[in-house]
């Protein structure tokens, strides 16, 4: 059983092209897409579980409301189904039965809610402090569109990762740096920093895969990255890079003439949630089919074999994983690949800023990896 055969099977299942397809020319003739070309349903814009921050006043009001409107359970039951019962504050011990335990329950619950109230005040002060700190870092570390400064910053570190991965959020169109344009802008900045830092591979993870599903967006991405690299390196000496989409097995080269892997300074990979667990499911299907047809013995399924396949189908294991969200949320990132990745995130940070990027590299250089020891 050759490994390439397995991944070909999986690709056939997911309608990807069997061999790595170069769509550079395709993309360069495509008219750059307007954002109206790619309508995305608003329901798929955000992964369901990022905790969005809310204002102090709103939270305090709601907590105060729920303190006042907390009723004994008996009062809820006779309200018709129209109004939703308050039981969404779900409780584990079940509805208290006796009067004493009922009173005690609400006494404790009120205490908990006042505790939450105090926490919300503390969180908001903390939020202010962190934002100020981040502002300070942004002023301290500023790349100034100069590769020299970035390389100097990086050269103070004892080691750097070989593969860096970033989890990006697609923000609302109305937000600052939001929508597909904002995402493309962030990726182009990240690629400039990565190439200047001397890191050869950049893996971008975006939950919905809005860039991957639309060729117009890809064309725009390529144009923006090239444009941004021109700002860093000048018009003549723009580093060569490639953009690869493992799920569809497509690749785009910055310069159609340069396709050798050694000559590329940066390889960008675009991932989305389909590259995570769904790909492992596809692999399972393929392997089971081959096992039925006696082409693969079940005994041969090993960590090494799966690892080889997933490297082929999804891409390399990142050494450093940076989440640019306000709280650590892995958003269904391919689970196989984050085994030993150093994870970095900045609490309450919402922007893709150079300060966060360089601080992540600093933490990586300080960490010690000892597998099992």
């Amino acid at each position, binding site marked *: 059983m050759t490994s390439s055969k397995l991944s070909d099977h999986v690709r056939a299942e997911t309608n990807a092209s069997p061999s790595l397809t170069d769509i550079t020319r395709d993309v360069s003739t495509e008219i750059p897409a307007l954002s109206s070309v790619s309508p995305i349903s608003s329901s798929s814009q955000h992964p369901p579980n990022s905790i969005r921050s809310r204002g102090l006043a709103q939270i305090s009001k709601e907590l105060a409301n729920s303190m006042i409107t907390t009723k004994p359970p008996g009062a809820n039951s006779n309200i018709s189904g129209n109004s*939703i019962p308050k039981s*969404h504050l779900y409780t584990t011990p079940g509805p208290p039965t006796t009067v004493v335990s009922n009173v005690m329950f609400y006494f404790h619950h009120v205490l*908990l809610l006042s505790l939450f109230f105090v926490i919300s005040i503390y969180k908001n002060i903390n939020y202010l402090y962190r934002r100020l700190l981040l502002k300070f870092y942004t002023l301290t570390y500023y790349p100034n569109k100069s590769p020299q400064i970035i390389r100097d910053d990086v050269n103070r570190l004892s080691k750097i990762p070989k593969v860096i991965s970033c989890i990006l959020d697609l923000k609302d169109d109305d937000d600052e740096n939001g929508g597909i344009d904002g995402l493309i802008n962030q990726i182009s900045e990240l690629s400039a920093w990565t190439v200047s830092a001397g890191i050869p591979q950049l893996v971008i993870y975006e939950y919905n895969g809005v860039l991957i599903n639309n060729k117009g967006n890809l064309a725009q991405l390529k144009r923006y990255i090239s444009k941004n690299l021109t700002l860093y390196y000048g018009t003549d000496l723009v580093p060569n890079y490639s953009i690869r989409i493992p799920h569809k097995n497509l690749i785009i080269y910055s310069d159609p003439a340069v396709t050798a892997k050694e000559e590329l300074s940066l390889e960008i990979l675009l991932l989305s949630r389909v590259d995570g*667990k769904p790909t492992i499911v596809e692999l399972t299907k393929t392997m*089971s089919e081959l*096992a039925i047809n006696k082409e693969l013995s079940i005994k041969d399924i090993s960590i090494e074999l*799966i690892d080889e396949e997933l490297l082929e189908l999804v891409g390399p294991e990142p050494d450093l994983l940076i989440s640019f969200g306000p709280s650590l949320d*892995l958003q269904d990132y391919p689970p196989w690949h*984050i085994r030993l990745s150093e994870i970095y995130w900045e609490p309450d940070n919402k922007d893709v800023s150079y300060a966060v990027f360089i601080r992540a590299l600093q933490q990586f250089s300080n960490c010690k990896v000892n597998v099992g020891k």
Partner: protein
Amino acid sequence: MPSAPTSSTFSLKSILDLIVYFPVVSYLMGFLEDFIIDVLKTGPVPTHVAFVMDGNRRYSKAKNLPLKDGHSAGAETLVSVLDVCFRLGVEHVTVYAFSIENFNRSSEEVDTLFGLLRDRLKQMSEHEESYARLNKVRVRIIGNKSYIPEDILRDLDKVEEITKQASTRRTLNVCFPYTSRDDITNSLKNIANKVATGEIASKEDITLEILRENNYFGPDVPLLDILIRTSGHTRLSDFMLWQANYNCTIEFVNTLWPDFKFFSITSLLLKWSYYKTLQLEERYIQGIKDDTDYTKRMELLKDLPPPPPFASVSER
């Protein structure tokens, strides 16, 4: 024992410890702990909590203790943390006791760890009034059992057997020896086997859910809510990658595991409870009632009161 660390004898911490562990005070502290647990109980409580118990060796190094004492201090912390979780109403607690990669350590330490684990689990379940049986905790060993030596495996099976009957919602999952990649591989193999024997009809029936059900944890273990790693490493180290990467709070704390006491665990649970409340509140506003049902949001239109009658020019 080597020379006692003289500098820390009169430190503020040791004086505080003396006060805290003074009988009367510790009695009162017990009341305080009960009270805090009662308060936390009234909010949302996670159903599944996992711990990476990291820092035993650094603890023993810092305290100038032999390695073995560090590990037993860690085991003691585990019992107290378990107690807090179960009293709060957490149904499943999972601990990373031993990684397959840990076989890279010196054989002496591996033997110590194996022995210690066996002794502790035995101690927890041996007698009628020992911890696991008194509190009706079911102990499960999760991981690749083919790595465990014969004699230890026999003892562990016995522990699992004794605690199995307890009709209970409290389960302690001990991951030993476990890595998540091994888990995923095992799940894949199981499914391939089932397809080969016809238990799963066709390959189209393989779904995410089936992959989850076939891992070492099995179908009954609820989704992971919190993963806590002590001692400051911000890596998952091959632990519950499949479970932790979606809808799960990951906490990296700087405390070493033996120092991870009552207040460390309760503050993390309080934080989780706080965010969960906010999240539930937000969903409540959006009209989503639980995690699984996002289609509920669509029904908001149907929930609205009916509009006034139409008045149309075409239907005169």
